[in-house]
């Protein structure tokens, strides 16, 4: 059985690439579900920041409505940062990451699957909770709709951009702060358009332009970030 017939690149069909992505995605989801702190910590953090603002400012209806969109966006952004540090760390420290080099599975595929799983377990629950948090800020139903749409389009961009920083700081012992310094400025455009939309819709302005820009940012980062991240991951194996 063990004849070591020489192997070369198997011509991977589209189907098998999708299968591999799916398997990696499910493996990562399972990993997050077993390590529940991955899901619960950012989610609790998000809820707590959102509830601290009204306590620190005032419960005035107009004020809360004005800051609501921005506060929810910033809270999600910071909560997503928390998990980014761990995005590749478990597999890196276990030595699993370097094993992908010895397979047909490219690191880019691994990166895509990990980002997707990370988004599903951390961003998605926050997006689902955001309408409830929004009502605490007296957001109108139009504003909540726009908020959710903006988050749905913007948060994958945050995860994609964040993955680059996560991979770059992977072999640093205390990369957490550096990661924030590297990545938070990159989040600014998403924040500006996402939070801006929530206020714009309140004064009756159209939000099509902002939605289009968020969409463009998403597709732009989707087509570039995984390659940058996998390149950074390859570099992190040099120790």
């Amino acid at each position, binding site marked *: *059985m*063990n*004849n*070591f*017939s*020489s*192997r*070369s*690149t198997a011509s991977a069909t589209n189907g*098998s690439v999708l*299968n*591999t992505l799916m*398997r990696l995605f499910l*493996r990562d989801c*399972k*990993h997050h579900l*077993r*390590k529940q702190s991955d899901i619960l910590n950012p989610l609790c953090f998000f809820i707590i920041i959102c509830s601290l603002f009204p306590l620190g400012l005032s419960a005035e209806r107009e004020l809360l409505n004005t800051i609501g969109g921005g506060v929810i966006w910033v809270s999600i952004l910071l909560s997503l940062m928390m998990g980014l540090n761990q995005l590749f760390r*478990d*597999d890196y*420290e*276990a*030595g*699993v990451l*370097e*094993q*992908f*080099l*010895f*397979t*047909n*599975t490219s690191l880019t595929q691994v990166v895509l699957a990990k980002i997707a799983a990370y988004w599903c377990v951390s961003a998605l629950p926050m997006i689902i909770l955001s309408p409830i948090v929004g009502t605490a800020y007296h957001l109108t139903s139009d504003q909540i709709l726009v908020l959710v749409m903006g988050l749905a389009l913007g948060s994958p961009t945050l995860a994609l951009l964040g993955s680059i920083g996560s991979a770059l700081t992977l072999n640093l012992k205390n990369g957490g702060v550096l990661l924030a310094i590297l990545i938070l400025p990159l989040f600014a455009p998403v924040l500006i358009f996402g939070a801006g939309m929530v206020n714009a819709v309140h004064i009756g302005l159209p939000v099509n332009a902002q939605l289009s820009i968020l969409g463009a940012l998403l597709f732009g980062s989707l087509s570039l970030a995984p390659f940058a991240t996998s390149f950074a991951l390859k570099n992190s*194996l*040099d*120790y």
Partner: protein
Amino acid sequence: MRSQVKETDHISELQIIDAVVTRGDTALFDPISFRCLSGQIIHLVGENGVGKTTLMRSICGFRSISSGQVLWNGTSIYGNDGFYLNSAYLGHRDAHSPLQSAWESLHFYQRLYNPAADPKEIDPLLNQLGLLAQADVAVEHLSFGQKRKLAIARLLLSERQLWLLDEPFSGVDRAGQKLIESICLQHILSNGMMLITNHGSLKNTALLDGITEVELR
């Protein structure tokens, strides 16, 4: 089970020519050259800190060598699928995700190495390594030696010709060492080849035949 048949028609060659590995600006050891053919074991020896692991990681392509060449069948290994799809690496890290069970982890690798393989092969393999009772135990709850044996199981699963083994015997008990030796011997007898770093001599072991020591200094 894994019946291993002697095969001689497929000879591969890993060739290291004047390789130098540096950390910062210092070369870790004198330029080194050796070749490893099918059926051979190269045993890298040298003192602690001489750069055995670093050389091993360079041969894997994780870091680049400062000068010299690493060739697989005459072609550079960098980005060479012919090398990567015919070799398996066991480093200091066992490469098993701590939250997966032993079986799950092997299944994950089996699908990566060969999507068409039969998951039923995993149980006999765990049995061969004496880990069948731990099949459903999370890897984080296995002992150090058991994790090491699980990593050997992954090598067998990969069915690759070239094994790159960095301290495969560390943390493994006497019986386990004998077991790993016999697995390595089987691998060599069935036309496999390996590069191995290990403290202490391999001369007293079952691996006596086909072994070449290469000293780093």
